[in-house]
Every structure is written in C-alpha cells, then in structure tokens.
C-alpha cells in the first residue's frame, strides 16, 4: 500500500505510472478492496514477525505434553494442540508457510503460463495449436488429482508442492496470456517496434507483455487464493508440507482426531484459511475493477 507515496515522490507521469496511479485512485474508493488489503497486510505482518511474536523452535514446535489440549486462555490465545504446542504460534507460523508457498506457486504458474501463452499467442498457427491442445489435456484433469499424482511420484515437500500447483495452474494462465498477446500482436506499437528492427524476443518481452499485464495480474491475485486452498487441502490429506511444520491443513487434520476433546484445534486454522482466501479474493476483485474498468458492469 505504498502507491500514494510513490505517486507524490515521482510526479513525472510516464505511461506506466499513470496506469498504476489511476488504478490506485479507483481502488481507494472501493471499500471491499481496502478491507481486503488491510486483512492481507495484517496476515503478512503476522507472518513476517512470526518469530518475534513466538519463536519457531522454542514455542511453535516445542512439545509440552503437560499442557496438551488446553482451551484458549490468556497464556495461550488459541489454546494448545494435542502435543501441548501453542496453537496461536503454530497458526502464525502456518501463515508463513501458506503465504510463501502460495506466492512461489503463483510465480511459477505465471512464469510457465506466460512463457507458453506468449509463444502460443505470438506465433500462432501450428505452434499455437500444439501448445493449446496440450493445455486442454492438462485442464481436463482436476487440479487436486494432478497434484496428488505428482506428490505420489516425487514425494512431499515445498518444491514439489510449488511445482504441482504451477503445473495444474499454468494451462488457464497460458490461455489468458495467449488471448492478450494475440490481440496486442496486431497493435500499431508492435508494428512500430518491428519497423525499428526489434526481434521477436524484444517485441514480446519489452512491448507486448508489459502492455498486457493488467488482466494477468488480476488473474494471478485471484489464483493465489486457490493456491492457498490447494496447499491446505493437500496438507490435510497428509500430502503437503511434512510435520512438524504447522501448515494449516495439517493442523486441521491432526485436530480432527481430537474433535471430541478440543474444538480450538479445528476451528482456528480453518478460520485463518477462510480469512486469507477472502482477503485475497477481495484484493483481486478490487484490482480487476481498478485496472480494467471496462470489465465492470
């Protein structure tokens, strides 16, 4: 949320800043986008300062059987889990895991989707056909199942999770990029760049992609919510981040066994997932309205 500062610091209005400044001005009037940004900022702060609030080694994963399954109290804000670990500490450290995997996975999805989509949209013809038929097949597999297959084959862990989510998310991203590149390809500025002797790579990377960013950014921010849901789903199934890492889905899965003794282990991590996903969706919707006013009804 530093765009207002950026705009006062750099009054020179080139094209790019103009877009972002305009977007920010529109977004500022959108209450739900602002609420979403505030929520997201709070979660990010909790994640960044997780170690300051509660140390990972001495609080979040330290087993203390004497204090197991305690209800929320002043010393344990969200109570303790089945091994006596402070649930609040685990949940804020879980925010770290979810946000970072979600972010990495989205970046990987973007990289894959933009590479495939721009090649496909820029060259068209046979290349386009081959790439898009391939993407059709990937899109026909439910993403959770594709991720499960990849985790079965390569084992659990962050890199595999990121890869699995990227592979299942890239096809729809590549379609969006492709459509954007196809329409930008015919624009005059591309012709002008060509006339100045720019090669294919330069045209795509320097002229087409920067001009087609808005819908891609919107899609990415909405996709990230989906990434976080997928990570927690896989962890719930025991196929995500291995224990003792306090991933939200993994905490939920352990908590389900103690559902008769302690409600807090199953309620709080789920609430965090819902809040994070809603915040991301609000920001994404706000970005869409702000960056692409044509789409707004």
């Amino acid at each position, binding site marked *: 949320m530093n765009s207002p500062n950026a705009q006062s610091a750099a009054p020179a209005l080139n094209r790019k800043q103009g877009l972002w400044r305009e977007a920010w001005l529109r977004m500022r009037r959108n209450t739900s986008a602002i609420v979403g940004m505030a929520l997201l900022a709070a979660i990010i702060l909790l994640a960044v300062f997780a170690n300051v609030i509660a140390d990972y080694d001495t609080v979040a994963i330290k087993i203390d059987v004497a204090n197991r399954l305690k209800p929320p109290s002043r010393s344990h804000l969200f109570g303790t889990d089945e091994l006596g670990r402070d649930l609040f500490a685990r949940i804020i450290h879980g925010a770290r895991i979810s946000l970072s995997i979600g972010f990495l996975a989205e970046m990987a999805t973007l990289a894959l989707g933009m590479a495939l989509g721009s090649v496909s949209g820029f060259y068209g013809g046979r290349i386009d056909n081959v790439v898009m038929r391939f993407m059709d097949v990937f899109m*026909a*597999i439910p993403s959770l199942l594709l991720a*499960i297959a990849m985790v079965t084959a390569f084992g659990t862990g962050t890199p595999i999770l990121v890869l699995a989510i990227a592979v299942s998310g890239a096809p729809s991203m590549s379609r969006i990029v492709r459509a954007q590149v196809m329409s930008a390809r015919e624009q005059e500025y591309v012709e002008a760049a060509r006339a100045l002797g720019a090669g294919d790579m330069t045209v795509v990377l320097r002229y087409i992609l920067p001009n087609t960013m808005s819908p891609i950014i919107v899609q990415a921010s909405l996709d990230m919510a989906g990434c976080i849901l997928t990570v927690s789903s896989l962890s719930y199934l025991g*196929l995500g981040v291995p224990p003792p890492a306090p991933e939200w889905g993994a905490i939920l899965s352990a908590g389900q066994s103690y559902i008769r003794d302690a409600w807090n282990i199953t309620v709080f991590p789920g609430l965090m997932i819902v809040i994070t996903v809603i915040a991301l969706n609000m920001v994404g919707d706000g970005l869409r309205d702000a960056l692409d006013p044509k789409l707004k009804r």
Partner: protein
Amino acid sequence: MLRYVCKRLVMLVPIILGITFIVFFILSLTPGDPARMILGANATPEQVAAMRAQMGLDDPVILRYIKYIGGALRGDFGTSWSTRDRVFTMVFGRFPYTFRLAFLSMLLTVALSIPLGIYSAVRKGGFGDNATMVLSMVMAATPKFWLGILMMLVFSVWLRWLPTSGLSSWKNYIMPTIAMSAASTAINTRIVRASVLDVIRQDFIRTARAKGARESVIFRKHALRNAMLPVVTVLGMSFAGSLGGSVLIENVFSIPGVGLLMIERVRQKDIPAVLACVIFIAVVFAVVNLITDILYSFIDPRIKAQYTRRSAKKPPKEATAAP
C-alpha cells in the same frame, strides 16, 4: 446437430488418451523398485530381476503405456502392488459411494443456487441480495474439508444430532452432501444471478415491455427461460467439481469411495491403484463436461443455429456475433 455431437465425441478420444498418458507418465517416475516392494527385502536379486521382467518394468514408458491402455480397454487395470487384488474390481466397487455423493450434492446445488440466484437478481442491491452475496463469498472461500469438520464438531460432537462417520443410514449423507456442495452452490448462485441480470438488460425484454406485456409475463416467459440456459452448465460443473472434491470429503467422513481409496493407496505407494483412481475420476470428469456441452448446445438455439446455418452455407460468424 448430429455432426456437432459426433465431432465432440471424437475429440474426447485424444483428451482421454492425453489424460491417461500424463498421469501414467508422472506416476512412472516414482522412485523405488516396485518388484522389490512386492517381493519384500528378503528376495534375491535374481528373483527381483525375474519379477521386473514379468511386470514389464524394463520396457520404455511408451511401450508400457500402450500395454496399459490395451489392458484398460479390456477392463484390466493391472493388479495392486500391496494387496495383489485386481485394481478394476477394487475401484469399481468403490465408485457407487463417490457417484451417490456427487449426485446428491449436485441436486442440492441446483435446488439452492437457482432460487437464490434469481431472488438475488430480482432484489438487486437489497438486503437479501447483499446477504446472499456476502454468504456466497464466504462459502466460496471455505475449504470443503474444514466445513465438513466444523459441521461434525457442531452437529455430531456438541448437539449429537448426526453420526460422524459410517454409512448406516441416510443421516450419514447429510453433512457430506452439504460440505461438498457449499462451495459450488456459492459460485453457481453468482452465475445464475449474473445470468438473470444479463438477460433482463437485453433488447428483447425492452421490446416485450414496449408491446405492453405484463411484468410477470415478461419475467416468466422471456427473462427466466433465457436466464436458465447456464443452469445446465451449473449442473455439469457441480457434478464434475464434486468428483474432484470427493477425495477430501470422503477422507473427512470416512466414506469408502474412490477418493478415500486413492489416498489410502497413495500412502502405500500402490501405484496401479492410484493410477486407476486418478484416471477413473478424470475420465468421468471429462465425460460429464462433454455431456454438459452437448446438452447446452441442444437447449441454446443460438448454438443450434450456428450449425444449421453452416449447412445452409452461410458463414457461422454471424451467429456467434448475434448474442
């Protein structure tokens, strides 16, 4: 029309081959020697080598894939590595549970999302609309499995109204069905709402008003009929989504469907069983999507027109631009 259906059916073949190949290829990269896994640690290297040859593990992936598809077409999906059962019987025996749950949740989605969506669109901007939209936003963000656990906590542990797991009576299906359909109900309510709002703004509604038709007639005869076209998509999408989500819900409520089987076998590294489960769900998913598309084209006269016009040798472009 028949040509369209045939075209779509033919297109399904490469898609299914593609799906099976990708899943087969990914799972074939699993490290570890399955022959050793089946025979146990005490087997001699010769026994392992013989087993590998018998299982065809030394062949290249493509060859193994062709053999697999050849077998699959005859209903032979191999034998399980952990129990030595026939995979086909195993998966097929579990399918009714998955199907029943997907079907029930599709019914619930349709029964809730259509009236709610229409209500929201008619009362656009009112309290009911806003409440529905907020609720749908929350539901779309709620993980299916957490909703399931939460309901279990409230209705089984605290209120003791419903059983947590097992399938002894119809009561066992209540919570899984709701948990499964909540997210798709939320999304589909939005789709129905948007579709009704879209139709209300069309020119033919204005024409109907201009010729003096009563509001109720306009709504029922002109608006609703057109707005209901996306409902077919709603049906298909919710059924297909439930198939994917069955993995989660079946695990929450210990329902012995294909999804639960898949996760059990993932833990045992029983690749043939996992492969069959994934392929099974993905293929049903693809077929349901195809049926949805075909049904849609039957119902929407604009798509039908596209094909009849083409046979009358007129450019199909006009038809796509018309709506």
